[in-house]
């Protein structure tokens, strides 16, 4: 699986309250959530994001609440992957569970500029900055997470296991 798009860059500690403010959590409809994604730190995000774009953050991306609405809103807004120096652990887990690809790569997160064209190969963890003509290598997923991703998220994985049990 591959992704390519323009980078939209933010700083450290991007929290779930700015990814999707709680005032919009009276719904869980992905498209409704996407309409308000990032609006408290970037009022232009929703109008500028293009399908396939790549979000880049600094340290501790996704810190704060356990709301799965955060990765859901990012995914529904069209973002194909999030690259960050580090992710907050619940956000990391939730992203895998709902099928939003994310990659930890401090080098790429620091070096990529807003607007750079970036391509990512999820199988190898290789990140190419097309604009700057540079390559970085991200942290690959641990094996069990690869299994979850292969099963199209945690629910698919559990279903498979339930199936195995019955068989």
């Amino acid at each position, binding site marked *: 699986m591959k992704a390519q798009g323009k980078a939209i860059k933010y700083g450290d500690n991007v929290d779930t*309250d700015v990814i999707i403010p709680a005032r919009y959590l009276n719904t869980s409809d992905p498209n409704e959530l996407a309409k308000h994604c990032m609006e408290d730190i970037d009022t232009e995000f929703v109008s500028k994001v293009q399908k396939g774009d790549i979000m880049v953050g600094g340290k501790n991306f996704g810190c704060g*609440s*356990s709301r799965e609405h955060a990765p859901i809103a990012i995914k529904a807004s069209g973002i194909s992957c999030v690259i960050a120096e580090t992710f907050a652990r619940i956000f990391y887990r939730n992203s895998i569970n709902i099928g939003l690809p994310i990659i930890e790569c401090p080098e790429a997160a620091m070096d990529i500029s807003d607007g750079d064209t970036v391509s990512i190969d999820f199988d190898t963890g290789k990140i190419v900055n097309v604009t700057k003509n540079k390559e970085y290598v991200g942290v690959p997923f641990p094996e069990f997470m690869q299994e979850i991703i292969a099963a199209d998220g945690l629910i698919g994985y559990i279903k498979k296991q339930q199936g195995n049990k019955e068989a």
Partner: protein
Amino acid sequence: MGMTMTQKILADHAGLDKVVAGQLIKAKLDMVLGNDITTPVAVNEFKKIGVDKVFDVNKIAIVPDHFTPNKDIKSAEQVKYIREFAKEKGIVNFFEVGQMGVEHALLPEKGLVVPGDVVIGADSHTCTYGALGAFSTGIGSTDMAAGMATGEAWFKVPEAIKFVLKGKPGKWVGGKDVILHIIGMIGVDGALYRSMEFTGDGVSHLSMDDRFAMANMAIEAGGKNGIFEVDEKTIEYVKEHSTKPYKVYKADDDAEYVATYEIDLSQVKPTVAFPHLPSNTRTIDNVGDVKIDQVVIGSCTNGRIEDLRVASEVLKGRKVHEDVRCIIIPATQKIWKQAMSEGLFDIFIDAGAAVSTPTCGPCLGGHMGILAKGERAVATTNRNFVGRMGHPESEIYLAGPAIAAASAVLGKIGSPEEI
């Protein structure tokens, strides 16, 4: 090499003699929690799994607390959806308005979590139950769905940081000040992926309510969980609230920690976290002149009876400043009733504060005290991120109940010593 408290609990629940940091395990769950925001998503996911029953009708707790009593039609629909699910599946611990409270104050009070338990909750402050010597951590809705179906969850065994607490905290210093002090010291990602283990003689000087406030904010340092060593106070609390069997785990003497901090509680000063990060702390003598518009005393961090008692001690015979709205929210029905019977409400109302039914309400900018553009609040809650309590250009200052109540009187951030 030995194991930490957390590692021992996880090993036992995974049916293993030993685990090491970084190991991936599957552990049995003693409790799976969700609220009115996260459970609707979990129910959708649960339905996709295709199982009829939940793994154990007694080991799931659903607490509609964020937007309840329902603030609008959409919130009412969300709660209706999960209420029907709880009924259909026979989930015993569904807490309706009238019995509910802020989830992390409610579960220990109802005796649903005891030492040695493994608890996951689709709410990041699920780490609160570490105060009881349980392993508890926040997860998302999909994990909650999987937990409800299978009674198990995947974990990566965490490394740990040890906090050795010494000495006795001074007057007006509570668990909130200690944890803000720690987060200020190690940063909002200082414990990322790790457990924070609290031990040392100083623990005995912290009440259970202090410990709940501290474990509650482990997530604010990025921690996977925060956990206290069990002592007589813990056992006393558990015996008073629960009939569930419990198990006490102690860290091995040769357990490995990635870092150890010694904290002298007698040196900790009342501490305030300035916008917009819980790590942006200043001691009360360094806050300067910050005028405020609102004070909120409540939440899963500081809405417990001791917090209300501290606030009443400060507000007794005084008036809330004319430019301040002071909103007090007891975290559960039981706390509410206790505060009422102790006469605390008379003190609050006479001072000009408003008292609300239990709800998360303003803590997450839901309802019951939203901030306008440019407004500032002192809150005993746990997060001061941009827009958390209302307008993106409003500001939240996090503090304990003593500072919050004193600030309500002063109209600016200050300590009870100044009034």
